[in-house]
């Protein structure tokens, strides 16, 4: 892409901040300032959207750590290592020692 093309493309992607802010008032993006929220509250109050049942109770307990995700990470890394030539079997349930015994 030439410098001219890139400059033209950057210009194409421009939009005024006023327009950006106004779009939030109409719900095109999530309102993130006091005037935007004030405008949104008006149409939210008139909205007939049905609240899904899943929102009837408060969300469950927050868990501070993710042992499952960490464990998944190490299991994946271990499998990658083994597939790199160290394992003598394609069967994850059979160790190298099992194979050597045969």
């Amino acid at each position: 892409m030439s410098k001219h093309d890139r400059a033209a493309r950057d210009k194409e992607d421009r939009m005024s901040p006023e327009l950006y802010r106004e779009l939030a008032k109409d719900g095109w993006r999530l309102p993130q300032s006091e005037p935007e929220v004030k405008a949104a509250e008006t149409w939210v109050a008139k909205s007939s959207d049905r609240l899904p049942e899943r929102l009837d109770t408060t969300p469950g307990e927050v868990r501070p750590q993710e042992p499952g995700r960490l464990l998944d990470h190490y299991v994946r890394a271990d499998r990658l290592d083994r597939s790199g030539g160290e394992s003598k079997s394609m069967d994850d349930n059979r160790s190298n020692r099992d194979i050597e015994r045969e």
Partner: protein
Amino acid sequence: MFLLARFIPGPSGGDGPPPCHASPYVEGPKTKIGEHMDLTAIDEAELLARMALQAHAREDARAAWAELYERHRRYVFVVASRSYGSFLGEDGTVDLVVDTFRRAYEWAGRQMLPDQVRAQFASENRDSTRRRVLAWLGAIAQRLFKDKYRDDAGEAAEFDAYLDDWRRVQAQPRDDNSPLGLEHLQTALASLSAAEADALRVSLPWYDLDTRSFAVPKGEATRLAALLGITPEALRQRRHRAIYRIEQHLGNAGYIAAGQEEPA
């Protein structure tokens, strides 16, 4: 001035926050709304202050969180549905709402100091306090939506990003000085094709107020385009046409100086 952060690990240790888009939480015992003490008389700043005490008074913190959720789940769901519902579907939108409140609870516990929260909102009236907290929840939801399409999808935004969001929301204009007419804007928006509207709507979280332009990284643009079943170039062209049409309409109405070149 907007200080709430203490920049030290929370009571759960130094682990980073779990990514919200990858089912990072377990479902624990659920609390039926209405089972807590009466918190209806206190404002959102006090609810945040109590949520910040979760390491020392967990039940009170959870009760405050439940009250915040009860008051504003409908607002967050309706605005999230309107912004992203066509891309996420109802289930995806509900996930976004739930993760937004979870992230708010977690962030309050790690980054907020109760007295600072109270001091920050001390001079606000109750409506203003509520709207600023809702604006913050909107910023969290937008961050979570963007996380779904990040180049390093699977890794959540760093907690510092949420701190930036908090500061940015608090720094937004407090008064409505917009020169635009919402009625004209709605007319202009109604003139867009569905394809143009989708391209603009899905791109808005990547608008950069500093550069006044869209900054969608290549990988994210590819994923957003795939969401709409088009190419990244088609996404860019449709977004460009949408902005051009809106600015032309508002320009003709005398509200804005059109900044876009006519699309080829």
